[in-house]
């Protein structure tokens, strides 16, 4: 029997719990069940349960290619976010307070702007008649426009733009906890700025880099708007494929199966990544 002490937290979280039960858990279960249904062009969704959709997805090289492309894009995006985001986070930390507050607005502000607007900007920049091509041609670096729109490369560039604030936030949080006088101590002992960065700062930033990478990777793998706008019909990723099945082909069960596989693979990657971090950094997190 629950004592009065124990009822209170459940009463307080009750409304939220009910909301999530009805609007999150149940729909996810329903979607899972839906993935086992089959679909026919005239009959619509049929109330049978088979593995048919999964066999179709896992057996077709078309879908393999899509999944592979999605994860490759996500991986490359993550790598670039690390290469560009970590130094920038460090530079931000060392700025004077005034310059830093302005730079933070520049770096974090875009998070508040809809991803559609941000991606539109890239669509304009990357087009055949877009800014970048015009610039490169006028500088004489290329003779004909480089195709950047509707390529995986274009998607990566825009995704890096969208995701890098998350990397900076994660690294920033990790570095906030550090003791800045450790860097001064290293300097006084004769270390060059590069050495200070690689031997003192980077190890402390590692937990942030790892958790940031995970966030960037899973968000990139699940991204929809950016690949939809910059990939169009030609470059498909998992999210846009699900969209197609649901809103164009209307084969909901198949779309559901693809979605479930995406969720499963993202979860597996997250859990194994987390386990890796915990093993290596068990001591760092108090």
């Amino acid at each position, binding site marked *: 029997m629950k004592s009065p002490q124990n009822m209170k937290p459940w009463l307080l979280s009750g409304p939220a719990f009910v909301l999530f039960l009805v609007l999150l858990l149940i729909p996810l279960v329903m979607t899972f069940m839906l993935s086992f249904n089959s679909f026919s062009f005239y009959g619509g969704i049929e109330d049978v349960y088979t593995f048919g959709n999964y066999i179709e997805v896992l057996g077709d090289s078309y879908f393999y290619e899509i999944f592979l492309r999605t994860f490759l894009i996500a991986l490359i995006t993550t790598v670039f976010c690390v290469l560009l985001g970590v130094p920038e986070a460090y530079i931000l930390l060392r700025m004077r307070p005034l310059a830093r507050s302005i*730079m933070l607005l520049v770096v974090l502000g875009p998070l*508040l702007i809809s991803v559609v607007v941000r991606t539109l900007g890239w669509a*304009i920049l990357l087009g055949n008649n877009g800014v970048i091509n015009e610039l490169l041609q006028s500088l004489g670096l290329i003779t004909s426009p480089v195709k950047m729109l509707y390529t995986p490369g274009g998607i990566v560039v825009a995704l890096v733009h969208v995701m890098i604030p998350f990397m900076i936030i994660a690294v920033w949080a990790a570095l906030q906890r550090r003791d800045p006088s450790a860097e001064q101590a290293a300097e006084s002992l004769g270390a060059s700025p590069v050495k200070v960065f690689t031997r003192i700062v980077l190890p402390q930033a590692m937990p942030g880099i790892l958790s940031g990478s995970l966030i960037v990777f899973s968000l990139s793998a*699940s991204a929809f*708007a950016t690949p939809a706008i910059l990939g169009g019909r030609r470059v498909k990723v998992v999210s846009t494929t699900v969209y197609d099945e649901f809103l164009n082909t209307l084969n909901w069960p198949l779309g559901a199966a693809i979605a479930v596989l995406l969720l499963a693979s993202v979860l597996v990657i997250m859990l194994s990544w987390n386990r890796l971090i915990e093993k290596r950094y068990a001591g760092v997190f108090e």
Partner: protein
Amino acid sequence: MIRNGRYSLLFNALFTLFMAGPLVVVIGVSFTPTGYLEFPPSGLSLRWFAAILDNPDFIDAAWVSLKLGIASATVSTIVAVPAALAIGREKFSGREALQALFLSPLTVPTVVLGIAFLRLLSVLELNGTFVGLVLCHAIIITPFVLRLVLSSVVGMDRSIEKAAISLGASNWTVFRRITMPLIMPGIVGGWVLAFITSFDELTVTVFIVNPSTTTLPVRLFSHITQTTDPLIASVSTVVILFTVALMLLINRFYGLDRLLMGETK
């Protein structure tokens, strides 16, 4: 203190260019007098801003987004505040699981959420309705509210409440006069972040709207994928300006880094 050297500042400048570039381009294109997306614009015309007024769909969509944002942020805040109080203060079994549940929308791919909501709403025959939109958005934005309110709750010195009790305050008085004012910054910050997230939301919304309840991001999205006229640029510019104004306001009274990164100092 080690300051940034020349190379660091150069890197920073290039980085700024990278971050601001697309937005500058969008704003620039919106002033074009021509009928296509050209940058830099050959002249400065407000033609495409005037065109917004001729396009009621965009204005309607903006209203929907605004109402939706306010409604879902409010719903989310109302359920998240008591949950944060429970999770942040009480020790009970299932606390970690409950917290993970409320933060889970962040880890589930947005398309998965989209189709799950679509499936549920069709079964409940709420598909395309405003209520359906509010409820689904509330789920997506609750993690943001919860995180910010939770950090306020956890960061509060509990002995302040004990002091109030020792001076004779009842539990309700303590909650009303002491606890609430002290966690209010977290609540307000959470609401604002939730509103912004709902306003900008695309992926999930695209699955559960219908022509009468389209939001601004969805309207923009369909326009972009179908046409290439500068109207999308001018609408986007308005969105950018609105957001920048909001951002400066937030920074002035709350701190943008505090909103997005939590209390880290």
